């Protein structure tokens, strides 16, 4: 949902806004930052927003009477409205600021989950989930007895929806699914899943940590109940994230964290919770970071989603082409057309850590490991993979640098 006018996406120009992209590593190598699925870098506009809030407008929020407090409250609430428009939520109070995707999902599991699930109920997940959308449900299962079921992955890295009707029954209380896998880049057919969930009366939670930074989000058109994402994966500060929740749902959910700001009244005997969104924002929030997230949204909104997607697809295709030529290298997951800008791969006889280490020695930053998705790796029979992930500031030249460095790794290990 960006309605304002946009400017064409020129990655070289974009890079001018990111101070860190101009540094070198190991003295001589210009940084090639391909770890965007883990976290993204910040443009000077976001850094400047942090400085300016701190130097001009900072105080605690929650409607203090004095000028600074009014200013920081205004900035904080206007960041909430920016988020609202960005994902097209119906109302600002449907936006809860959290620390990140992880806290957002835990909030739903503890508040909605504890109050609404029990033995005999089921929650439907997928085999490709990030631990953030897996462990909170394991914990919930241990508390309430709700049972977890999983949509399996096909060999090509796409969800196997053939058995969806078996898996999604009238015992299913919630379907919690990632809008984009952080390992394979897989984009599941959300519309089909939401329709199926609606037909059985299950709620839908979307882990959109990898989606929101890269593609347009419209919670109303999608008709989802909860959506979670993180500021630090979309050019914003670390330490802030969002839980979107439908007003009717949030309004009925019991509080999660208890403390200042989330109450209407407290006595020695008990307390009455406040209305949303305050009810779910106990304590001093990450004020400056939330305002910075609003600035990141402004920055992203300069560009059209079409341009961002086309650019990332171009890089992903190039990566598939070049990496596909390297002997012994296998790319995990679907073809570029069916996924986001994420390329995870394994070498037949070279461990992912050795790959990442040697790439770093040439300035290329990638991740190695299970990327917080152990069940997915088990599914594909690999212990660890190497992952390159792209964003709007990456260039084709950088993909070439990745491919060349990978070929050198192969030769180094005499494969």
């Amino acid at each position, binding site marked *: 949902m960006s309605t304002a006018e946009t400017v064409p996406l020129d990655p070289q120009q974009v890079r001018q806004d990111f101070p860190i992209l101009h540094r070198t590593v190991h003295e001589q190598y210009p940084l090639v930052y391909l770890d965007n699925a883990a976290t993204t870098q910040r443009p000077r506009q976001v850094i400047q927003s942090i400085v300016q809030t701190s130097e001009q407008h900072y105080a*605690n929020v*929650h*409607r*203090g*009477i004095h000028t600074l407090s*009014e200013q920081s*409250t205004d900035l904080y609430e206007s960041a909430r409205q920016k988020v609202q428009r960005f994902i097209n939520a119906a109302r600002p109070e449907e936006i809860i600021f959290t620390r990140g995707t992880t806290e957002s999902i835990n909030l739903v599991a503890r508040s909605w989950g504890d109050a609404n699930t029990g033995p005999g109920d089921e929650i439907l997940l997928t085999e490709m989930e990030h631990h953030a959308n897996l462990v909170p449900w394991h914990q919930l299962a241990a508390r309430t007895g709700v049972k977890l079921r999983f949509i399996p992955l096909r060999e090509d890295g796409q969800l196997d929806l053939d058995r969806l009707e078996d898996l999604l029954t009238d015992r299913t209380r919630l379907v919690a699914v990632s809008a984009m896998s952080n390992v394979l880049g897989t984009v599941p057919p959300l519309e089909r899943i939401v329709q199926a969930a609606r037909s059985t009366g299950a709620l839908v939670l979307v882990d959109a940590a990898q989606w929101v930074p890269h593609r347009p989000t419209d919670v109303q058109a999608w008709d989802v109940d909860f959506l979670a994402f993180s500021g630090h994966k979309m050019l914003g500060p670390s330490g802030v994230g969002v839980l979107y929740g439908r007003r009717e749902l949030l309004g009925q959910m019991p509080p999660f964290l208890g403390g*200042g*700001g*989330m*109450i*209407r*009244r407290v006595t020695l005997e008990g307390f*009455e919770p*406040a*209305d949303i969104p*305050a009810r779910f924002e106990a*304590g*001093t929030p990450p004020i400056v970071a939330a305002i910075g997230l609003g600035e990141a949204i402004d920055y992203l909104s300069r560009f059209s989603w079409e341009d961002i997607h086309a650019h990332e697809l171009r890089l992903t295709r190039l990566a598939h082409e070049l990496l596909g030529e390297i002997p012994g290298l296998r790319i995990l997951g679907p073809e570029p057309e069916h996924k986001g800008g994420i390329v995870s791969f394994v070498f037949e006889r070279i461990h992912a850590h050795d790959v990442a280490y040697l790439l770093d020695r040439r300035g290329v930053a990638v991740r190695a490991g299970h990327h917080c998705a152990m069940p997915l790796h088990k599914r594909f029979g690999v212990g660890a993979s190497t992952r390159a992930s792209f964003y709007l500031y990456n260039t084709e030249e950088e993909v070439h640098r990745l491919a060349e460095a990978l070929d050198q790794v192969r030769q180094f290990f005499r494969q």
Partner: protein
Amino acid sequence: MFSSPEEEIYQEHILEHYEEPYHRGHCPRATHAHEDDNPLCGDFIHVELHIDPQGVVREAYFDGEGCCISQAAASMLMEAVEGKTVEEVEQFRAEDMLRLFGVRLTPNRQKCCLLSWKVLQQALYSPLEKKPQDDSPQQQAAAPEPPAEDTP
């Protein structure tokens, strides 16, 4: 001293309502009453109304405690609604209350201003004795809750 224009929210007419409020006290022939508070700043307002059988608010009284804004606003509101029909008072919305107050308020002070208005709206549906006229269901959510204030 505070004579500069920035003190405009404490204009003379507001201070006068604060210091010499209109109809602070009990309504001798009250038919309706309601009370509520804003726990976050400790303000509370109690409203008593005399509504005649034709549905006209004949008399309006308030009592309470709180900041200058909340108490002056209550006083101004009591004065304004006398002689109005229940329908007219119902249609008197939050915006109208802020306009009546006459001074631009920041969001945090708006809720002070709106407390008596909220209580009044509820009072319309809070008859003192259960009568057969009790066909008007307890109005829900007519008054939007202002944003919570809770100073850390």
